[in-house]
């Protein structure tokens, strides 16, 4: 700090760092209180209740309109993925992608650490 004396820019940076530390300390004393946890979680629970009610209403509306829900589309996507995986498994690998070719193309597994005769 002594070498920074009189250096406005260094002082500003140091003050910024100190402000960060102090402000975080002060605010985490508030956020770390039981009452903070209780109120934040109460607000979140209320939000989730509203969301659940909204989801249920949307699901009922979609059924009434004879339209697929997000869950139905997700199930379809999952089934398509499953079919794609099966098709991929049926495809013959390219000659360079066979397990034997891949193993042959890889470097030898004989490396030693620098101190034990290996290169660094």
């Amino acid at each position, binding site marked *: 700090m002594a070498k920074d004396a009189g250096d406005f820019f260094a002082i500003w940076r140091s003050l910024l760092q100190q402000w960060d530390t102090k402000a975080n300390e002060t605010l985490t004393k508030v956020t770390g209180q039981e009452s903070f946890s209780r109120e934040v979680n109460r607000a979140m629970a209320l939000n989730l209740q509203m969301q659940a009610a909204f989801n249920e209403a949307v699901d009922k509306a979609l059924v009434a309109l004879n339209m697929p829900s997000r869950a139905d589309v997700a199930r379809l996507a999952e089934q398509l993925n499953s079919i794609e995986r099966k098709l991929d498994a049926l495809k013959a690998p390219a000659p360079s992608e066979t397990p034997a070719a891949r193993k042959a193309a890889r470097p*030898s597994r004989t490396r030693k650490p620098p101190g034990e005769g290996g290169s660094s």
Partner: protein
Amino acid sequence: MNATPEALQIDRLRQEVARAIQRNVKGWEYLTSVGKAGGVSKRTLIEKRGTMNLYRYDALATEVYRTPILFVMATSNPAYVFDLLPDQSLIEFMLKRGHDIYLLDWTAPTAGERTLRLEDYVLGFIPDSIRIIQDETDEDQVSLVGYCMGGVLSVIYAALHSPGPIRNLACFTTPFNFSQFGAWNQWADPRYFDVDQVVDTLGYFPPEMFVASVDMLRPVSRVTATLQLWDNLWNDEFVKTKRALDKWSADTLPLAGEYFRQTMKDIVIDNGLYHGTLKVGGRRVDVGEIKAPFLHAVAEHDHIVPYAVARELVERVGSTDKEEVVLKGGHVSLVAGPSAIKRMWPKLDQWLAPRSI
């Protein structure tokens, strides 16, 4: 020749004026471009199963160590923090040092995967990946390297499969004594936080909630970080790394509902991993069963997984060859950025190399 204090002050002022001009020029560039991050090393996706993605990296050395390494990423974030930018990639560093690298990475779980449980990760994804690697490399043993919650999954796997195929186990900032989280324990107090309501309503744990809870650990740090970014706008390297890490942080993933419910109840609230009461697939998890050489790298200034949460893991694992290193840095700067390049990466290489032959 010693310059006078006045001359030094003038030099300093000149430097700051030059930086101020650069800030204006580069500030415009910053606002009109997008950050780039992730996946600089050449790799192949060798197994994909929903949220699970197993990658094999192309070797960068003509001769590699015998034991392959499987990196296991935390389930909350994508793994490109290991492979952030050219010359700022842990994966690239380890490949150049002659290690054979595989990576278990995660994408957002699909709606059909909301029922995934710890068992799916620990008794499914990890052992299946190890079997694939054993088959590819013709090696019986694999080293596991886990980061944060990836470390927890690796520890549980290793405890349930001892001695098993694990040659070495290295963990970064891996939580163990979950009662020491402080504010997070308060927010997850079951009297107020209803994990069942979250999972039953949403089916997953939203990334926004996770990011908000991390931000609340240091409520003003985003403001400070923005001011520090402005201060360093003249410095291309600083800006590049900051943008890449910000992008990574914004790419936080949702967590599968049942996996989150089980983690919260059995690991966080009951502290079951620490007390030895956690059961996965009907089997009790005892970290004392781990016998493989063990390294735990923790960060001195980690506010996400504070040292008190991670500290006792090394004491409790049953390995005789075990070590804990406390390195300068925070939760993320331990694995990525200039501090990691100087400290953790060389340590990991030096620890693994003699144990990988």
